[in-house]
């Protein structure tokens, strides 16, 4: 660490000498010794940038926001092309171990942006960590520059990550340190407060130097004498090296295994994955575990082990390392913090509706809302009016279609025309009504006469029937009197002598009606 200090300060002083044009350098010569005074050291500049980037004040200080130096990550942002390039350089990244995509909840990822090597994610053996190529266990051919050594593992850096206080560590070492740090998170070298989100990937120059270091093949213990640059060693060891495969422990078995057998029987039997119940070959268990949906992978944002299948929901809902917006963002709070720090922010968020400022903001928002509502109402009215005008136009056109005068009519004329149309329709209606009633009258009169005639006929028939009934009744009575033949009846008949002689005459005259009383 002591050795790295002078080198960084020397770059800080050399740098301005290159950039300042000669004429301006002359004017600054008087204060040349205080170069560091107005030009920040890289570390200070990064810290400054970080501080400003993560400002939690809702109204950013105008001055600092104007002179805010660009974030260091802008220089180290791995574009998709660079990621592709690294993959092309031989690292097998096919097993996507816990990648955090920006596609989750936050648009901006926090923490170092370079994709770490799978070995940096410190996967446990029970989740297949044993079959990840271990970049941290390489043997270097020559002693490398002390400045390239990680202060924690004392080996050349792997996936170097730089802290805001300008110390650089291996990805895995720093994460382990943050994870196990008893005194909160602090830089292991100078104990500056530190969070993972503030760290960033170290510059390309350093990475290039590290990748150029010559290492021995990890199978050198088995006889491989290959030595190559560190960036190529994984391809060699996993693809090219002829010592990479081990014979199966069972001498009968012809197959090879990828790692040194730890048991003395053949591993090529089918078994079930203990997480997903899929049938796998025991020898390939680790390879399966690295892709098993129900196995766990490292969440890069919060360093927790999370089931692969639930990684997306973990990022969306409960990962503490993902940057999320304040829940009052719709009220205007611009703060984005890691989910783990959200509660702390909410307790002091000026947009919280229960604080004084929050109330003011809320009432203002209500006003704005009301105004917006009114505006939309006015717009609605306007559109309705336009609609009405269009309808009137249509009606006018329709009326014109019925052959009424010129087509170009103003609103005034239209109304008059409409009135006239109404009038005409009204007249037509009255006319129709009159015709209707006339027609009805004409139809009804004959029917009524007929009804009267029918009624007369019925009356006549009724009279006839009555007469006939009376007559038959009387006839029956006379016949009964004749049939009894006793003196008493004779006396009766003799007493009624006035009417009696007429009755037979009538009966004789009617002739055919003799049987009627019998009915």
């Amino acid at each position, binding site marked *: *660490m002591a050795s790295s200090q002078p080198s960084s300060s020397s770059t800080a002083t050399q740098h301005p000498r290159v950039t300042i044009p000669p004429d301006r350098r002359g004017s600054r010569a008087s204060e040349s010794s205080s170069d560091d005074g107005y030009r920040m050291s890289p570390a200070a500049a990064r810290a400054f940038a970080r501080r400003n980037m993560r400002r939690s004040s809702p109204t950013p200080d105008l001055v600092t926001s104007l002179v805010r130096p660009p974030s260091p990550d802008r220089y180290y942002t791995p574009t998709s092309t660079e990621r592709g390039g690294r993959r092309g350089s031989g690292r097998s990244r096919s097993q996507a171990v816990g990648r955090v995509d920006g596609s989750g909840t936050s648009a901006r990822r926090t923490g170092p942006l370079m994709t770490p090597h799978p070995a940096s994610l410190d996967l446990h053996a029970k989740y297949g960590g044993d079959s990840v190529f271990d970049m941290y*266990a390489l043997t270097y051919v020559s002693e490398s520059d002390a400045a390239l050594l990680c*202060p*924690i*593992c*004392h*080996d050349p850096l792997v996936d170097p990550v730089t802290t805001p206080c300008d110390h650089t560590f291996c990805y895995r*070492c720093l994460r*382990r*340190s943050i*994870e*196990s*740090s*008893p*005194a909160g998170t*602090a830089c*292991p*070298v100078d*104990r500056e407060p530190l969070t993972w989100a503030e760290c960033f990937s170290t510059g390309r120059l350093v990475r290039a130097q590290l990748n150029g270091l010559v290492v021995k093949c990890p199978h050198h213990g088995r006889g491989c004498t290959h030595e190559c640059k560190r960036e190529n060693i994984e391809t060699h060891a996993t693809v090219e090296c002829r010592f990479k495969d081990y014979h199966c422990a069972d001498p009968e078995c012809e197959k090879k295994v990828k790692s040194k057998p730890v048991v003395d029987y053949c591993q090529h039997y089918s078994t079930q994955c203990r997480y997903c119940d899929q049938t796998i070959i025991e020898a390939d268990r680790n390879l399966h575990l690295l892709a098993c949906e129900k196995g766990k992978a490292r969440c890069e944002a919060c360093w927790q082990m999370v089931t692969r299948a639930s990684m997306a929901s973990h990022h969306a809902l409960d990962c503490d390392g993902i940057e999320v917006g304040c829940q009052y963002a719709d009220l205007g709070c611009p703060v984005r913090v890691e989910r783990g720090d959200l509660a702390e922010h909410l307790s002091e968020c000026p947009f919280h509706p229960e604080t004084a400022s929050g109330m003011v903001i809320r009432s203002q928002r209500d006003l704005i809302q009301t105004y917006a509502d009114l505006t939309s109402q006015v717009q609605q009215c306007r559109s309705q009016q336009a609609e009405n005008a269009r309808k009137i136009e249509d009606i006018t056109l329709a009326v014109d279609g019925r052959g009424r005068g010129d087509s170009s009519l103003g609103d005034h004329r239209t109304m008059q025309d409409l009135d006239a149309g109404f009038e005409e329709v009204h007249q037509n209606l009255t006319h129709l009504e009159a015709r209707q009633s006339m027609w009805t009258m004409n139809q009804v009169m004959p029917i009524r006469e007929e009804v009267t005639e029918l009624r007369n006929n019925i009356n006549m028939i009724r009279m006839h029937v009555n007469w006939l009934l009376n007559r038959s009744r009387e006839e029956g009575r006379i016949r009964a009197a004749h049939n009894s033949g006793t003196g008493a009846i004779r006396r009766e008949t003799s007493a009624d002598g006035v009417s009696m002689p007429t009755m037979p005459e009538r009966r004789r005259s009617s002739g055919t009606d003799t049987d009627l009383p019998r009915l």
Partner: protein
Amino acid sequence: MALPKRIIKETERLMAEPVPGISAVPHDDNLRYFDVEIHGPASSPYEGGIFKLELFLPEDYPMTAPKIRFLTKIFHPNVDKLGRICLDVLKNNWSPALQIRTILLSIQALLGAPNPDDPLADDVAKHWKADEQAAIEKAREWTRTYAQPQPQPAS
């Protein structure tokens, strides 16, 4: 579990470039266990004494601090009767960037600058505060009695 490369490297370096006044030798059967000897710093009551300590590197070293204990009796406000040491870098202020070498140097510095305000051995600290001269004299006496190089070859 295999020994991490860092422990091997540290051990090699401790052997190759030893710190003046400090020696640390790992046990043959357990490379995480070290026998340590610290010479009392000059112009301190412990001058001339050779103090033995034991040092153990736990499983997750360097993420946790090594366990260190005085084996030699010592009259010091920050070391208790059992030889346990009250030193911030061994507890909360441990950092994985520290090493065996730096920790032993801190202990040597602690011998040179006792801190009775943050005591582990209360009686020693009281003695130290009440009468510093007498306490220093007692520390000197203990050093002569218990921390002399002569008995070392015998034991």
